[in-house]
């Protein structure tokens, strides 16, 4: 309308000439749009709209201007007589044009044959996080992200479609701007994360793709006016939950029942109050970006500082990202991404491997320590447990022990892209990363642990370097309008070197030197150092063919050689194939108004898991600490036997998927069914011990992961009140298919000081990895019950009653499965496991006028937790504190309970009493923001100003009686991170936060 009016008012020129065309671009919501790209079709002449949506460009009459902007439907308009051309762009809710980053390139969503989930910048910055991966939790179907422990800067466990291995890492591969194994920058600097899930997407990463690949793309500048973005947020944090422990009076009663001579310490201390405090986060990020037609830049600095909810713990991160792209010529583009980061962490001891006399951690001791002791003695020294293990009090452990970790990282990624011809490009990249860190630990004499050794200090350091060079050619051409063909072929080489060293000493004159005077220790300890090197060379290729954009074929392959692989198996080949059918483009659906998109996908392929550590295939002698005549001497013994045939683990994955769009893509649905079988699992196959070797690494064993993923996004309402929902739900069934000789493998993961726990978990064919293994608890013996005999089992009223389920032996000495009237190790069975039946996330975004509201729920269902924390506290045998469950213990006056009596003779053992339902629903984020109207902010040259308040983890619905159901004890390192799921001991509680923040763009 406006267009015609303007045309009529403008003088008409008879001769076509190059002239200035200008105008304003607005959106269908009525807002002016800065940053819209305008190009004269068929030329390289272009510009972008300014902050007020206005543009001006040189264009001949009769040419066509193309207006485009991400998320909007592009428009092409002819330049007519008028010099004013205003445009209104409509929001494109279709995601067909969305560009997805895949291995070594990008693809339009409509052309994708593999299973890929894409997470955009807004979701990654919904609330402040130490590590961007944390923001992935609950955002993508098939992707499980869990915090192992709640400490600031703590490790996360990421699993894509289940854990594929037992003894090798199941962590996915991270590719940052094409740098395989690169480090992720601050979440504010990330443009998008793509999770590649099926073989078709991951096979191009060959021997490292089996666990899925997370592609991270960092932000780049855009042509146009310089943009300045500033984001800041502040959060106040508390532990998600506290545990109910006995107070001093209750503890006295509880202890005197078995130790009548026990005298109270006189105080009433709530140890959780002593160690917990209000924590906080402050987060700042400042980015400057911009560019011209020929170059763009993005420079950003970020600072994240978290004060932990336990005293003396915290984490901080400083980082600098600088991305620069420029056209060296018409055909050559050069890019340089630099990233520098320093991280610092102050740690306290939690999830300790053994919490005995001198190594009890902060949380573990806060629960065990007797509440009737004060924090300090009258003489100022810290109290120590009076009965039981003489552990330091929790406040002392938290405040006195020093544990500081500082790590610096520098990463550079350079690429050169040659457009050799219109259809052929060549890209070469060089990535380099160096990473080094230092950790100092000091145990002073104010702690019992330090007192005995005169103070103990240690410093450990590591320095790792990683260099990668990739070179690949891409050729793409459309033949005869219907045949779209592209082929990629490349070569890559990667080298990495890891070094580490450690020095320790004991017995210092004073505590004030901390760990900066190791030579002053009069009892030096044995230092150690280590070195390892890996090289990987690869050839890879991908072929894409589509017929009429309706039938799509993809073939991927990679040929990897690694120095880690054994002598006889240095090279590995990983192919995959996929087919997709855009059923929507078929005649019978083309006119459908119901379906806007309907694509079937199927893929199958092989990917690998490097699995083998450097030097692991070689036979070895190792040092043994030996003393002759009071002095250490050089001594070695055989520790490893060679395996010249050792090979990587291979995963075969089949994926069926469908992408459906309904009602012009107001509803988008993606569903996948997958089945992966990983074979040639690396196993320390138990060798008979009489061979002198405990085990030999062999490739034996198979695991299966199969499951179903569903992701639905809907645009419920549009316009002034906008409401969008996205929900994802995934199930995964993990099952061991094959073990060496089919035998069960039993192993223990209990904290070392809980002696006698022995084997706690089992690997058994037909069961999920890491199943809990123990006795079945049947309640409490009452007077008059028949007591089952058994060494170490109670036979009294008030004692724990276990079920006799096996023990009878047949003529050959094999178990028959019938009870034998006795309790012993044969009566153990699988009592649960930590794998979730399904995980889900539900995100709702509302916006109305300037307000936006985001509500994000996330949960896990069906996983069980084996709680060593509650086992230690509630066995009710010993001299430590207990939870308020102890108030309901069996006594002759209180017989109707399943909490046994107080005693000193009960052995701690793994039973179904300690297996809890770990299912939870969590309100992960709720955020209310307000965007100041453009009209107001433009007066002060601000293009966007948003303030918000939000809360994280404020509601958790769960039956688990520990601190938090999201926990994994003893889950670091390749083997433990697969086998130990759903364990809890003395964990640092996760935090709930209240956050306020602001986003400003200039």
């Amino acid at each position, binding site marked *: 309308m406006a267009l015609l009016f303007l045309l009529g008012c403008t003088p008409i020129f008879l001769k076509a000439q190059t002239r200035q065309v200008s105008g304003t671009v607005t959106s269908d919501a009525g807002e002016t749009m800065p940053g819209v790209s305008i190009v004269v079709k068929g030329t390289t002449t272009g510009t972008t709209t300014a902050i007020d949506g206005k543009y001006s460009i040189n264009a001949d009459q009769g040419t066509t201007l193309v207006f485009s902007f991400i998320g909007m439907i592009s428009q092409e308009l002819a330049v007519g007589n008028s010099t004013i051309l205003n445009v209104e762009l409509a929001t494109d809710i279709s995601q067909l044009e969305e560009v997805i980053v895949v291995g070594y390139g990008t693809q339009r969503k409509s052309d994708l044959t593999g299973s890929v989930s894409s997470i955009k910048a807004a979701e990654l910055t919904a609330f402040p996080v130490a590590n961007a991966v944390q923001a992935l939790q609950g955002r993508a179907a098939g992707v499980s992200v869990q915090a192992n422990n709640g400490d600031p800067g703590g490790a996360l466990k990421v699993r894509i479609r289940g854990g594929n291995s037992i003894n090798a890492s199941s962590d996915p591969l991270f590719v940052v701007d094409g740098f395989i194994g690169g480090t992720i920058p601050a979440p504010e600097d990330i443009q998008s994360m793509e999770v590649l899930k099926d073989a078709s997407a991951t096979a191009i990463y060959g021997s490292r793709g089996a666990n899925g690949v997370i592609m991270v793309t960092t932000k780049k500048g855009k042509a146009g006016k310089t943009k300045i973005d500033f984001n800041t947020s502040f959060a106040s944090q508390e532990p998600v939950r506290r545990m109910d422990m006995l107070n001093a009076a209750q503890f006295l009663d509880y202890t005197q029942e078995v130790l009548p001579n026990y005298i109270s310490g006189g105080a009433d201390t709530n140890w959780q109050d002593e160690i917990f405090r209000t924590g906080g986060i402050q987060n700042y990020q400042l980015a400057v970006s911009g560019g011209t037609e020929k170059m763009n830049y993005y420079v950003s600095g970020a600072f994240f500082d978290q004060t932990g909810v336990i005293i003396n713990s915290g984490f901080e991160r400083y980082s600098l990202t600088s991305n620069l792209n420029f056209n060296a010529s018409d055909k050559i583009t050069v890019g340089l991404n630099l990233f520098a980061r320093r991280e610092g962490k102050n740690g306290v001891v939690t999830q300790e491997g053994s919490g005995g006399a001198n190594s009890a951690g902060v949380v573990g001791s806060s629960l065990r320590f007797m509440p009737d002791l004060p924090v300090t003695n009258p003489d100022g020294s810290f109290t120590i447990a009076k009965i039981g293990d003489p552990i330091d009090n929790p406040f002392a452990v938290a405040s006195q022990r020093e544990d500081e970790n500082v790590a610096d990282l520098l990463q550079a990624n350079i690429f050169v892209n040659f457009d050799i011809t219109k259809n052929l490009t060549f890209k070469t990249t060089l990535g380099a990363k160096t990473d080094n860190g230092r950790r100092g630990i000091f145990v002073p004499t104010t702690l019992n642990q330090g007192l005995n050794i005169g103070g103990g200090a240690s410093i450990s350091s590591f320095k790792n370097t990683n260099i990668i060079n990739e070179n690949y050619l891409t050729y793409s051409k459309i033949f005869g309008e219907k045949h779209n063909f592209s082929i990629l072929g490349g070569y890559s080489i990667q080298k990495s070197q890891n070094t580490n060293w450690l020095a320790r000493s004991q017995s210092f004159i004073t505590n004030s030197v901390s760990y900066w005077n190791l030579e002053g220790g009069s009892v030096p300890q044995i230092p150690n150092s280590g070195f390892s090197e890996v090289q990987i060379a690869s050839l890879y290729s991908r072929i894409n063919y589509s017929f009429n954009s309706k039938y799509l074929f993809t073939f991927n392959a990679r040929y990897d050689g690694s120095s880690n692989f054994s002598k006889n198996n240095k090279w590995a080949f990983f192919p995959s194939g996929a087919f997709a059918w855009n059923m929507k483009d078929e005649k019978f659906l083309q006119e459908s108004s119901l379906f806007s998109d309907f694509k079937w996908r199927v893929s199958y392929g092989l990917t690998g898991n490097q699995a083998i550590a450097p030097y692991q295939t070689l*036979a070895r*002698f190792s040092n043994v600490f030996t*003393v*002759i*005549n009071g002095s250490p001497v050089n001594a070695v013994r055989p520790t490893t036997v060679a395996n010249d045939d050792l090979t990587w683990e291979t995963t075969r994955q089949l994926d069926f998927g469908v992408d459906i769009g309904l009602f012009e893509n107001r509803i988008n649905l993606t569903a996948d069914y997958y089945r992966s079988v990983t074979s040639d699992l690396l196993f320390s196959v*138990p060798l*008979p*011990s009489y061979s002198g070797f405990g085990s030999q690494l062999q490739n034996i064993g198979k695991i299966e992961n199969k499951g179903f993923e569903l992701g639905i996004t809907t645009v419920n309402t549009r316009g002034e009140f906008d409401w969008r929902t996205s929900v994802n739900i995934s199930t995964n069934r993990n099952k061991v298919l094959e073990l060496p000789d089919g035998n069960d493998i039993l192993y223990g993961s209990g904290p070392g000081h809980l002696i006698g726990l022995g084997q706690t978990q089992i690997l058994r064919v037909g069961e999920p990895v890491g199943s809990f293994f123990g006795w079945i608890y049947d309640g409490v013996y009452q007077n008059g019950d028949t007591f089952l005999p058994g*060494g170490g089992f109670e036979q009294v009223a008030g004692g724990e009653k276990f079920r006799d389920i096996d023990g009878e032996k047949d003529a050959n000495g094999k178990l028959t499965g019938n009870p034998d009237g006795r309790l012993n190790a044969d009566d153990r069975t699988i009592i649960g496991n930590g794998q979730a039946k399904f995980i889900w996330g539900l995100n709702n975004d509302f916006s109305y006028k300037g307000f936006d509201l985001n509500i994000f729920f996330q949960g896990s269902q069906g996983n069980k937790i084996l709680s060593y924390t509650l086992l230690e506290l509630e066995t009710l045998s010993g001299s430590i504190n207990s939870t308020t469950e102890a108030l309901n213990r069996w006594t002759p006056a209180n017989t109707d309970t399943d909490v046994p009596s107080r005693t000193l003779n009960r052995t701690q053992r793994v039973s179904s009493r300690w297996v809890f339902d770990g299912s939870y629903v969590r309100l992960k984020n709720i955020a209310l923001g307000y965007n100041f109207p453009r009209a107001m902010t433009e007066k002060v040259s601000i293009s966007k100003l948003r303030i918000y308040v939000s809360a994280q983890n404020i509601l958790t619905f769960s039956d688990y009686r520990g601190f938090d159901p999201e926990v994994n004890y003893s889950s670091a390192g390749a083997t433990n991170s697969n086998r130990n799921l759903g364990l809890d001991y003395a964990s640092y509680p996760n935090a709930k936060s209240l956050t306020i923040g602001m986003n400003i763009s200039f």
Partner: protein
Amino acid sequence: MKNSKNIILGLGLALISFGCADLEEKPVGVFAPETFFNTPKDVETAVLGSYGVLASEPLFGRQFNSALMLRSDMVDIGNRATSAERIQVNDFNMDSNNGMVSRFWPVWFQVINAANAAESGGESLGLKAEEINPLIAEAKFVRAFSYFHLVRVFGELPYINFAVSDPTALKNISKSSEAEIYAGIIADLEFAKQWLPSKQKNDVRSRPTAGTAASYLASVYLTQGNYQKAYDEAKFVIDNKDLFGYRLEADFRSLWIAANADNVKETIFAMDFLGQVNVGSQNDDLIPNMTGVINFQPGTFGVSVPSLKVYQTWDNKDYRKEVSLVDTIVFNAVVRAFPEFTTPRPHIYKWTQSPGNSNTGGRFSDHNYIDMRYAEVLLIAAEAGAEVGKPGTETAGYLNQVRERARNWGGRMTNFPEDVSTGLTKAQLIDLTMDDRRLELAFEWKRWYDIKRRKLGESVFRGPNSLEPRTNFDPSRDYLFPLPNSELIINPNLAPNNPGY
């Protein structure tokens, strides 16, 4: 033109990097067995490795010797809330999943494997006998020492006397009979006796000498009931005691002072631990912690505590009782008698009285855990001599040397225990010797072996004067430990397990 230059440049870059790929590993800081043995010093380094493993927590640091201590009638469980596996070993109701066994079984074989590797490395050098046999003899001694313990604890088990490079080939081997194992042990000890020096460098007692080999031969023959040979070997050691540097320490207590451990001349073979060095399970000893009084010796666990009758039946006039047991402790300047101990009985004192440079409770102490000392050789000579009819003057004489030393109450001579009469009958002398062994070598993991070889189980556990009554003691089963079930699962040829398990 510019384009082709660029293409060539790019391809050139690619080709250069291709040439840089070298996938062969060159380990740094790691030893490869194939190239390790070049000189006798290398063989020595490998032999020394086996001592390092012997001095570790699963063997003489705690698990193995505690299991033997608990099994006997001289040591009972103190703290009954300790782990079930220890209670089961003590109470004779263990099964083949027992945790103590599964901890020490594999480590014994690491020792044997280290010794076998050293022996094979030594033989591979092709040197003259005089140059290399002393080191090969050391390796053979370690193997014999290990199998001597294992065969007494387990009975039949796999006998491996070669270096293992392909463990899967051993997956189906059968157990060797006790006779075969003893034959191997004796052959190794004979070689060792022939080729080991009379004294090691610096007179260290944690490496074997010819005297060590002879002493162990005496013990092996005694166990087998071959009393003539036992006597011959013991006599050989006694006659050559000055050559080997053996003598009884004047003060019984000085055997248990850790700071002095390396100077004890009575030691024939010991495992050497160094104070306060924490390197994993190596060098980690917890016997002081296992035997200490929980409430008055901080950091101890009070697991291995003799029954009250051990204390009550031991004569107060015996200095060795004073040194071996503790019945009062001064704690925070207050004298506490044993009824106030957490477990209200006197505790073992040998290792907690003076652990030297150590951590809390005596862990990581400086103790050398003695497996054979000269006093035992004298007792073997007495017992074996009596069995073969040697004159009373001689056999009683040996016993009396031990008793004479015991009369030295820290510098003051007493008159208890009195000398044994030379006119006793064979049976009387043997009984007396067995009881003297029980007291002299108390808590030194000897008693269980004595009970076993003399089949004393029923009388010491079920008899009227039992120090630790165990009515469920079953002589058809309980003289042996079960082989770990995990081994039988891997190698079904090891079945059946020992009778009753």
